[in-house]
């Protein structure tokens, strides 16, 4: 009774059966088949194992000619027949050396078309591999992106709905969302920054509030410095460490009074006076004694005392006193914010 229809088997290239490939894949697409079904069609019609490699798949999707699914890590072999999408994001392999006969060629051509169609339907508009991850992070940290789009981006990045994250904003790069298990004293931050990277690290938030962490991370980035002798300071600034200063940073751009304060002009003028000024000011601001400042600068403490006397004349305040140091720290922070204003 099933004899009224024939059995589907590998097509015989010598018997001119290559054309039967077309209605096979057309019907798969009509019936909204999935990727595994398309790869299975390639394997069964050609009679050789077939594999599909796409961005984001750990193992290739591989099907044997009898229809069984069998993903493996080995291969591929350069001798195998292969086709790929223009951007290289989709690669289809037939595990059989070329050159392709008429059936194999037809199967690979129609198979690739079918994979692209299914992939577009299930993964949205197809993008080149490199862009994809960056785009997802962008969406996730964008306050104007809707909650649904952000949830979708989070899921595609492998983040659970109740995941806690920090956003890292590197200089010159895209903000990225990093899953964290928060610890006391922010020790989890070590897992987020790349060594040597200059970046701002946002506070721990639930993943759906990633845009807020991103906003603060961008502010923290403005407070970083190259960390060289000429421009000393921290390359990594974590919002947790700023305390209320983040509020100052957040309102800086919108408050002319901050940047118009004469202390900023005074420090800029002092910096222009001599090459040693910026480094010395930074060392004094970030250490708590003359001795440790001298050690940080690698100068004799008497050299440092002479410099401080000059600075007091330039700035009109004593940077070593308690309130003088605080006044200097505030001025330096405001200067960094002013220098990085858009």
């Amino acid at each position, binding site marked *: *009774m*099933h*004899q*009224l*229809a*024939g*059995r*589907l088997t590998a097509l015989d290239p010598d018997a001119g059966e290559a054309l*039967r490939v077309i*209605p*096979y*894949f*057309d*019907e*798969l697409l*009509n*019936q*909204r*088949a*999935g990727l*595994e*079904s398309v790869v*299975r*069609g390639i*394997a*069964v019609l050609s009679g050789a194992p077939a594999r599909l490699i796409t961005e984001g798949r750990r193992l290739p999707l591989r099907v044997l*000619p*009898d*229809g*069984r699914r069998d993903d493996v890590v080995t291969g591929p072999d350069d001798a195998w027949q292969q086709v790929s999408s223009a951007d290289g994001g989709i690669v289809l392999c037939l595990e059989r050396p070329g050159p392709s006969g008429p059936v194999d060629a037809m199967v690979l051509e129609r198979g690739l078309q079918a994979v692209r169609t299914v992939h577009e339907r299930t993964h949205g508009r197809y993008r080149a591999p490199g862009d994809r991850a960056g785009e997802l992070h962008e969406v996730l940290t964008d306050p104007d992106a809707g909650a649904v789009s952000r949830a979708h981006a989070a899921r595609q990045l492998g983040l659970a709905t109740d995941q806690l994250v920090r956003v890292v904003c590197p200089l010159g790069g895209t903000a990225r969302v990093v899953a964290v298990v928060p610890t006391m004293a922010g020790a989890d931050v070590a897992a987020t920054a790349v060594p040597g990277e200059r970046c701002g690290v946002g506070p721990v938030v639930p993943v759906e509030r990633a845009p807020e962490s991103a906003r603060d991370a961008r502010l923290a980035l403005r407070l970083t410095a190259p960390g060289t002798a000429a421009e000393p300071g921290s390359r990594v600034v974590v919002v947790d460490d700023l305390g209320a200063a983040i509020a100052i940073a957040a309102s800086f751009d919108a408050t002319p009074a901050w940047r118009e304060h004469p202390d900023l002009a005074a420090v800029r003028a002092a910096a222009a006076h001599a090459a040693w000024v910026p480094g010395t000011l930074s060392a004094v601001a970030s250490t708590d004694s003359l001795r440790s400042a001298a050690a940080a600068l690698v100068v004799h403490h008497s050299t440092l005392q002479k410099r401080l006397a000059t600075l007091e004349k330039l700035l009109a305040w004593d940077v070593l006193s308690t309130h003088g140091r605080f006044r200097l720290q505030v001025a330096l922070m405001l200067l960094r914010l002013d220098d990085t204003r858009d």
Partner: protein
Amino acid sequence: MTSDSPPLPTRRPVAPPLDPEASAALATQPPRQHTEDMATFVSRLRGADSFEASDEELALGGRYRLREVTTTCPDGHALRLLVAEPASIDWPRPALYYVHTGGMVSGTPKTGLLDVLTMADEVGGVVVSVDYRLAPENPDPTPVEDTYAGLCATFELAAPLGIDPERVVMVGASAGGGLAAGAALLARDRGGPVAAALMLLNPMLDDRSDTFSAEQMVDVDPWDRDANVWAWRALLGDRAAGAEVSEASAPGRATDLAGLPQVLVCVGSVETFRDESVRFAQRIWEAGGAAELRVWPGGFHGYEFVAPHSRLAQETWAARRSWLRRVLAE
């Protein structure tokens, strides 16, 4: 409108969607032809490729040996039974009593045998495949009586074949499913023999072809009502769809299904046979019996032979093997 005018034609109900891979396999083939007469119907079925495996393939790499035994039917006919025995000497063994497909008019004991042997191999079972006489040359009740006679012979030969009589499972596919169900009803009514279980694969149960699915699947299922009516006519002649058809000949007519062995019914959701198969399982439950019903989504009649590689076919066979292991307590 008067009471004896014909009913207004209604639009045929839309069929459920086909499984994509099974449908794609069908799409590569030439379109089905309609049947004009009995001779064409019979010759087309008998002439078609029935995908019989070779003897070498059936030996399953040396694990099975094939031989023939014969039993004499009440009417004197020498009924052939093809026996496939495991080479191992692990006795006694379960047995699958297999009734092949062919629309009542075609097929041989080797039709579809490889798949049944593959199932038997997993449980180390013997397969006995009955060579029942075919319609239209041998009309009802010969095919179902031959099937019953073969079942009896399997039990009589249990000792020499190393078969455990408590673990004989009847397996019938399509027309063979109808015959197996019919033979099981005869066994119940005649007091034996008692099979452990009954596996009905896309069974052909009801000559009336009057179910919703029979109407729904016209021109959709490769085995649609057109073909089905010819097959039943070959078996029953003018009695088809009439008043004088016994329950053993058309088990879909039986309303009391108490006292049967536990049953597996497999059918596709896009089959002519869907509703009569579902009804059969339903009646077993209503009688307090044990039945497992599997309706495979998007399957047409014979999808597991036309598209054996498809995910649906793979799952289908896995479910059948799983049921078999369960009923044999493996």
